[in-house]
């Protein structure tokens, strides 16, 4: 797995950057969002569950959110994962 990115900074989108971590480091999620107070936890939960479903254990996720819906977050995260794996 290599560092990879998906999504944009346009309204309703989210830009996700994945960086590999050492085995055992676990999942680290940093979120920057203009709706962090209302939706920060929800965004975190979508990212965490999508990673768990994909079987990813050690990764640093940086997400810059512009009001993305859950399915958009999931689509962008899965694209970033595809790209990280393809680059590896």
């Amino acid at each position, binding site marked *: 797995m290599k560092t990879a990115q998906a999504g944009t900074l*346009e309204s309703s*989108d989210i830009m996700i950057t994945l960086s590999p971590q050492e085995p055992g480091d676990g999942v680290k999620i940093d979120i920057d969002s203009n709706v962090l107070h209302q939706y920060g936890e929800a965004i975190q939960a979508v990212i965490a569950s999508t990673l768990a479903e994909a079987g990813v254990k050690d990764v640093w996720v940086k997400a810059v959110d512009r009001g993305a*819906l859950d*399915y958009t977050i999931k*689509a*962008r995260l899965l*694209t970033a994962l*595809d790209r990280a794996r393809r680059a590896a």
Partner: protein
Amino acid sequence: MMAIRRSMLFIPGNHPGMLQNGGVFGADSVILDLEDAVAPTEKDAARRLVGMALKNADYGDSEKVVRINPLDCDGAVDIAAIVPCAPDAILLPKVQNAAELREAAALIASAEVAGQKPVKIIALIETPRGLANALEIAEADPRVVALAFGAEDYTAGLGAVRSKEGGEILTARALLINAAAAAGIDAIDTPFTDANDDAGLAEDAGLARRIGFKGKLAINPRQVDVIHEAFNPSEKEIDWAERVVFAIEQAQAQGSGVIAVDGKMVDAPIVNRAKRTLEMARMLGLKKEDGQ
């Protein structure tokens, strides 16, 4: 029930904001676009996003269509990813012949999951060869429900100069309409590319309808209402259709199949057109249920 495709609105496939709002414009069909609207480096992202949008976004009563990439440019990857997400139809670009259409149909069949409603195909005819083979394409597989015309690529293929009046595409339009009619499917017209010219669009859509198209591609949400206005049956047409159907029913009750309405003889194709007009008016709420 007949499908109504007066307007088919393109929505860029890698644009979350537009994808989530695609249902609010009242288009008869939305076309989530993986082809021209998506940069080559973002095809993977659009494929994921459109798949998710199909499963999660609310497109209301709009038919959900996905324009995939041509089969020689990852179209097969698009089909494998998109078909299980249950679109109503796939818009297949740059179809050149029946073999390509059948190849796509086979890929779609193998991508469908158990219990899924069969995915239809709309063939986009946008090359001189595709137009020359339009009838065989229309009849290549029972999934094909419409031929759509893409005039920009087509005229580039001819070396013709595109104009607002469209004299250079009149023959192509007529050939495409004829092929679709011969196969018993719909013909959908090329988009009007100047999104700021409502009068020009109204004129172009009016012409399209008069020569036999059943609907028109749209590249901007603001075109939807103008296109609907052009393709809706008028009050006069509904009134005529009601009189035709009433007259034929009376004639049949009296054991005769030949009638005249407004001094003109009416035969089976005219009756069929009248019935289609009435059904369309009823589905669009333009006519009272009890007629007359």
